Each structure stands twice: as C-alpha cells, then as structure tokens.
C-alpha cells in the first residue's frame, strides 16, 4: 500500500521501517534509563487506547519509563498546562498529539528550547519546523484515508446524488487532509455528485449537525464523517430519522466495527493502524534518543474495511480478537 499524501511541509513519506529498532539499539536504550512523557488529545477513545498500547508497550520493551500520560481533552489550555508541567519534570522526550495549531504552537516550541526531544503525532502546530522544533511527525496517510473513504462511499450513491460531509471545525492537519482528499476524489471521479459540508466543533455536536444536514438535504444519499466517534453519533440520528443514508468514515473503533458488521447505515471505514502507529512513534522516540537522524515524516497506510472484511481487519488493527457483539452480528457465533 503506497502513501498518497505529502507531509505538513511537503515532505515525502518515509516508511515505518526507517525507524526499526535493532537488538543493539534496544540494548543501548535499556542501559540509558530514558524517561518519556506523553500528551494525547484524549485517552478514552478506542483509537487513543490502541495507540497508547502500542506506544507504551514498545517503550517498555526498550527500557524507557513513561512518567506521565496526559489527557488533554481536545482543549488547547489543558494541553499547554500539561506540556509546561512535563517540561518542568525534564523528561528526555515528549510524545505529543497537538490538539490545535497556532494556539498550542508556543507551548510545543518550549519543549525543544528546553533541550527535550519532541515527537509529534498526527499534527504539526503552525510554524514548527522538523529538526529544529520537533524530531519527526508520525501519522497515518490521512490524504490516502480521505481518498479511500470517497472511493468506498461512491459505490453506494446513485448518479447525481447529494452527499453530505461532516467535517471538523478545527485547524488540524489530519482532518484537513482527509477533507481535502475526499473532496478532490469526488470532484475528479464523481463530478455528478453535489457535496454539502457542515462542521462540528465538538463530538457532542455531531448528532445535531447530522440532523441539520438531514433537514437541509432531503435527498441526501451519502455522508462522510471525518472520524468514527462522530460517525457513530451520526448513524444513530440517521437510523432514528428512518433515512437511507450510507455513511463512510475513518478509524475502526469498536462501535464503528460493530455498526459496520451489522450491515446498517455505516457502509465503509478507512482504517488507521493506531496500535502500529504507537509502536512506530515509540521506535522513533528511541531512535531520536539514541542520537540517530530521523525522517521528518513517517506515515502508515490505511486499510479499507467493509462489512465483508471487518472481522479480520479488526484483528489486524486491534491485535486482538473481534468483540463478541461483532461476531454475533456477523453470525460467526450464536
């Protein structure tokens, strides 16, 4: 699977293998007693839990102590406070998923200024430069995920259909890339489709925004939601309204996987690999701490998931068996 997007500064992607840790790297790391802090946008979503599992586990294998995992609750002020607290504790590295752009840029700049290595996940705050302000960005190929979602949704909507897009109202590299790619694919391959965008600022608004779209667009046949948690909220609203709208989204959370297996309104998921992303971020962190040069952007490809391959995709992405409810819905057990 190739990477179709470019990095936040136009970089070409490097494969996760570029940060592979060899036995001698692990041996050196174990003797160094490194300390790392982690600041995530949230710690409660399925994606975040998977990422943490891959990240913390791999760091543990390299003998690196994780001294804090902060849940920034999608809030700039909380993240700024968390990062400043972390800097005070002087870890060797901080792994951060910036929750915004300009608002959190200065706080992230203070990390490198304090002599601490910064590894970014999914987003680069405005003005930060690789090798100067941060070591590397580790993310999914979000542009590729957006294209994947568009392609899969296209098969479920008729010629001349109206398609809604529920986009995130924050300046965030990952969701921007997904949105731009989705629109681009549709404009090139399905110029017959009428696209209407509505934005939400918080996940709790997703249901309300879906209702507005349903009211405004009585002929809406398809809906793209930029990630799975708001997509499952949108699915509930669509089912309650008794409308036949096919949904495509990104990220294979548990709820989304079960919804997909049910063969309902959610018809496809362009899945990230959060567990592998966490592992890659951990390897990148150790590589940086060992003083080796890292590429500016390491990207992981997405996986297209449909009701047909949801069980095996779940296992591959989550590195664990599919939940009982999913297996029941697929009628693999009784």
């Amino acid at each position, binding site marked *: 699977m190739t990477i*179709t*997007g*470019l*990095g*936040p*500064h*136009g*970089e*070409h992607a*490097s494969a996760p293998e*570029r940060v592979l840790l060899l036995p001698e790297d692990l041996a050196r790391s174990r003797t160094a007693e490194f300390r790392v802090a982690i600041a995530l946008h949230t710690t409660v979503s399925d994606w975040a839990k998977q990422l943490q599992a891959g990240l913390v586990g791999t760091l543990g294998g390299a003998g690196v102590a994780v001294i804090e995992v902060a849940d920034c609750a999608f809030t700039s002020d909380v993240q700024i406070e968390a990062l400043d607290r972390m800097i005070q504790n002087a870890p060797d590295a901080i792994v951060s998923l910036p929750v915004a*752009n*300009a608002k959190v840029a200065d706080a992230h700049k203070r990390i490198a200024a304090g002599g601490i290595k910064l590894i970014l996940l999914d987003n680069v705050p*405005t*003005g930060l*430069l*690789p*090798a*100067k302000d941060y070591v590397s960005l580790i993310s999914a190929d979000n*542009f590729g995920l957006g294209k994947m979602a568009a392609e899969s949704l296209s098969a479920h909507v008729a010629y001349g259909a109206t398609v809604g897009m529920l986009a995130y109202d924050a*300046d965030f590299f990952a969701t*921007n*890339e997904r949105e*731009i790619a989705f*629109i*681009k694919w549709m*404009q090139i391959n399905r110029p017959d489709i009428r696209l209407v965008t509505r934005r939400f600022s918080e996940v709790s608004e997703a249901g309300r925004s879906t209702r507005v779209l349903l009211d405004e667009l009585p002929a809406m046949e398809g809906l793209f939601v930029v990630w799975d948690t708001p997509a499952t909220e949108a699915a509930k609203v669509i089912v309650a309204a008794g409308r036949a709208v096919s949904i495509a989204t990104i990220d294979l959370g548990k709820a989304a996987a079960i919804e997909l297996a049910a063969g309902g309104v959610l018809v496809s998921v362009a899945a990230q690999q959060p567990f592998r992303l966490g592992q890659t971020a951990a390897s990148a962190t150790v590589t940086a701490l060992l003083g080796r*040069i890292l*590429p*500016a952007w390491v990207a992981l490809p997405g996986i297209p998931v449909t009701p047909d391959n949801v069980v095996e995709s779940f296992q591959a992405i989550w590195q664990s068996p599919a939940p009982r409810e999913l297996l029941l819905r697929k009628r693999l057990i009784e």
Partner: protein
Amino acid sequence: MANFQADSSTRRRGRSRTSETAPPSLVEILNRVRTEHSTTRQDLERDTELGRAVVADRLAALNEIDLIDESGLGVASGGRAPRLVRFSTERAHILVATLDQHALGVGIADLGGRLIMEHHEEADLTGPVSMLCDRLTTLFRWIMDRQSAKHELWGISISTPGAVADGTETLFQLSTPPVLPGWEHFPLVERLMEAFHCPVWLRSSVEAMTMGELHAGSGTGCRTMLFVKVGKRIGAGLVSEKVLFRGAQGAVGLIGSVPVSLGDRTGTLESMAGSDAIAEEGRAAAERGQSPLLTDFVRRGQEIDALQVAQAAQLGDRAAIEILSQSGRLIGQVIATLANMLNPELIVLSGSIAQSNDILLAAAREAIYGACHPLVSRDLQIIRSQMGSSSGLVGAATTAIEGLFAPSTLREWIMAGRPQAHPLFTSLMTRIATEVQSDNKAPNPPAKKRGEA
C-alpha cells in the same frame, strides 16, 4: 476618513494640501512600524523628524483603516509606560502557492508573513494549465472558507519552477508571463485576479524559497546567504545585505546550466547531478546488480526515482551512497566557485534529496570547504533547510507583502486603505471584466451544415 482628507477650500493659498503631503509620511510611518524600526510615538517623532501633531494625525489615519494597533504598553523608563505602536498583521491575508515539478503547495499567511495553514499534494504540472488553475482555485476557496472569513484578501503570491522575468513597470503582475509551457495561451494570473479580486505576484521557486529561508528559516538575521535547491533543476538564490538579489532580468542563480565534468563525461550541472541523473544512475546500478537494495526495488516491480536512491543510501547501500556522493561533489564544486566570489556567511541546501539525505550534504560540504579560500570558509556554515516546501510558501507571502508595502506601491493605495484601490489594479480589473464580457458576447460559431465533416 481622517482629517488629512479635509476640504481643501478652507486652506490658505500656497500651502500644500494635506491629501498631497499625507501619503509620503503615512507610507514612511507605516513602514517604520511594520518593520518594527519604530515602536512608539516618541520613536516615530524622533526617527521621521515629523512634528507631534503630524505623527498623531497620521497614526489616527492608520488606526482608522485598521493598519496599526496602539492597545499595548511598552516598558516605562521613569515616567508612564509608552503606548506601543504595532502593525496589524491580521488586517488582511495573503493566499500563497508553490508549484513544483511534481507537487503543489497552498497556504495562507498574515501580513507579517506568518504562515497560518498549509497543504501539499502531488500534482502534474505538465497537464493543461486550466486544470492547474481549477485546482488552485478550489484549494484557495477551501482555505478562504476555513481561515479567512473575517479577513480581507490582499494578494495571491505563487512560486513557479521557472524564472519569472523581472517586471520593472510594477510590483504585481499585469499579465501572465510564459513561465511554463502552455502559460502563453492561458491567462492564469487574470483568472485568479477575476476569481479573488486581488493582485497576483509570481516568483521563481528558488527566489521564493530563498526569501522564506531568510524570513523564517535558518537565514533569519543573515546578511549574506546562498540558497541552493537541488531537484530535477538546480538553482541558487542570493541574499546580499538582507535583500534578495534579482539581477537584471530576475534570472539570478541558474547554476543548473553551468558545465561540469566527471571523468570523460561533460554536461550541465543539472544533467550530471540533478534528481533525474541520480535516478538514472540508480537504475543503471540496479541493472548491473551493483546495488542490492535498488535491485530488490526493481524485482518488486517498483520504479526507481531519486528519492529511492536517497533512501537506499541512507540504509547503507554502497552503490547508492556513491551516486549521491558524486552528485554532492559536483554541486559542491560549483557552489565553491560562487562562495569564493560572494563570501556568504551561510549556505543552505534544499530540495527533497538534500533534505532527506545526509550523504549528498556531506559530499557537498567536503567539496565546498576543500575548494574555498580560508577566509571564505573560516566562519562559513553549510546546512540543509529545515523548512521543506514551506519555505516557498513563506517566501511567496514575503514577496507579496514587500510588493504591497513598497513605498511606490503603497503611496498609490494607502489613502483608500486597501490595495484594490491601486489605480493600476483597478484599470487591470476593468480590462479583465471587459474581456470577459466580450468573450461572453462573442457570437457562437455558425452551426455546421448537415453532411459537413
């Protein structure tokens, strides 16, 4: 509007009108504040030698058109803390784009040249210009929708792969120059002006990247800098006394055309050391079985490009290392000649190969330090760019901002408070509107008669 536009009938005979005298002092005051040479009213009175009343009047005028902000307080030196006079960088935005051989970057910046957001994607510049124009328009509209609802748009600035001839008659484009094949038949600049109602600037990508590096990258604060972009084309940008040197025709730094020799082979620097040459050497090494990694790429059905050669070199492939070293040495030899001539304090290597790989940089460094006069190399720093394609976007923004606020241009629109009032711009927009109208009115070609081929 401020009182400098007061009714002239009340003025005494022989005394010049305020509307005639105001623009030069407004321009001077605004540019001093914008470049932070003066940060308080006292600074302005001292630096411009204008009276307190005149400075107060001009600041009131600039305040009224939201170009300055006096809400902050400076540090007191005994008495009351002085009010800071600051340029309102958020007054308007500039849309920016970089066009590369295989990629397109877009973004938006404030009037301080700060990039607010950017996006890069792969693109094919050999396709029809109309498609490029449509893509740029779509992306610009998306950015405006996301970022600029509360701000005016004052310019579009684009960096292009080819040199843009220096237009001495104005600081923004009056037409579309034939920078790339096909541009002579498609009014790209006019289409963008029509769609976004603002002036358009074009610069070569090397010039824009040099400006970006100087403004926001490693070159910040540098007096003399040489910027070299290594890609399919190899070009250089020169900064002298903190200003981009554009030469007689805007064609400075076309070092890719310099002839170089390697053994019994002679060719231009571009053809011997550019990314096409690196890819070609990589393919040859794979075919000869000299490079296990590149041979494996081919065996897996992958096409070898320069980036793959660079990645193979980074992973320790000896043949790939030699290819990049050779390219670095050739580039270094040419840069050394320039360095001996220009005595820069900083040389920045950019482009995806130079940025993703240390081997080319190391070989270039060795060649430069080895061939430079000791006085030239003593404090010379040779580094790779950390900005990637962002330098082109920041540089494009800087180009537009310098164009907008150049005294000769600023004087023409400052009284109206927005650059769209510049007489050249208004006449250009009228011309474009007339052309569009006449295009729309043009009679349809006669329908073919039945039986005609």
